[in-house]
């Protein structure tokens, strides 16, 4: 059929290149339709036995334990109880006088470093003048107080 014999389109238009690509699209479709087959299978009677297992809490209202408000309330109650128990039963006063001396020396020996003890010393170094201040009678007394074993140990 020659172009000038084609029926008048009456104003209807087709997308650009529609007829040029029509055959190509048709062939693609025929090719793919030929390959069409549902290879996916289901277990026997799957659809007949299919049942939706709705969660139990769907029908009854359950208060969520993990809600923020619940957690805050529970924590507050627990803290109040703990505080009350502490104030009621822990009335024994702790001070340095009733510390067990053996326990204290064990703690000092095991836990405290020598450098830490320096913190308790005044930052003043001894010099020769400090010794010259001692009067003769005091010096005599000091010498008398020194134990022989102490000298041997040093």
């Amino acid at each position: 059929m020659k172009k000038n014999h084609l029926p008048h389109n009456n104003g209807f238009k087709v997308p650009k290149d529609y007829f040029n690509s029509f055959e190509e699209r048709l062939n693609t479709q025929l090719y793919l339709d030929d390959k069409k087959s549902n290879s996916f299978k289901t277990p026997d009677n799957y659809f007949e036995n299919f049942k939706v297992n709705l969660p139990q809490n769907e029908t009854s209202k359950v208060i969520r334990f993990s809600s923020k408000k619940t957690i805050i309330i529970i924590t507050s109650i627990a803290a109040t109880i703990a505080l009350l128990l502490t104030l009621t039963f822990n009335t024994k006063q702790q001070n340095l006088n009733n510390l067990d001396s053996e326990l204290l020396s064990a703690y000092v020996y095991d836990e405290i470093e020598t450098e830490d003890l320096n913190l308790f010393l005044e930052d003043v170094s001894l010099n020769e003048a400090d010794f010259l201040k001692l009067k003769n009678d005091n010096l005599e007394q000091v010498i008398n107080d020194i134990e022989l074993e102490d000298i041997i140990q040093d």
Partner: protein
Amino acid sequence: MTDEQQLVLNLQNPKTKNKAFSELVALYKERLYWHIRHILKSHDDTDDVLQNVFIKVHKSIDKFKGDSKLYSWLYRIATNESITFINKKAKRLQITNEEVQNLTINNLQADVYFEGEAIQLKLQKAINSLPEKQQLVFNMKYFQDLKYSEMSSILSTSEGALKTSYHLASKKIEAFLKTD
């Protein structure tokens, strides 16, 4: 009032909800199953997601306003749940979504619920090579024979764009199948 509108009303009425829900499941279980199955490929994964889809529908049917058709709403939930399933699997295995899909395709040969010949396996590989949206469009048109108008309301894409997408997908798949 159409049957679908009546079904929605019954689903939203607490007195008739359970009966209407059974009707809904009976009506859509197969269609939704195949929609999900063509995305996920594995029967077990599909079964899990199909359950989730209906549970979600049961929970949120009161929020359905009827702006779209019920089947579009169901298909949208099924599509989203399937994609979420792949995302979660990818995160759990610490691989990409594409790698998850490749893994699934590789497992098809050993799948007792896949009985395809070599060409069918190659077809699945070809589909898997497409971008995610084109895969959806191709599966919905080729396997489920959905109308473009239906696909348009499910995927919120114009019919023209869907036709172009399907055509592109078909060409790519044809080329993939014709290579050795």
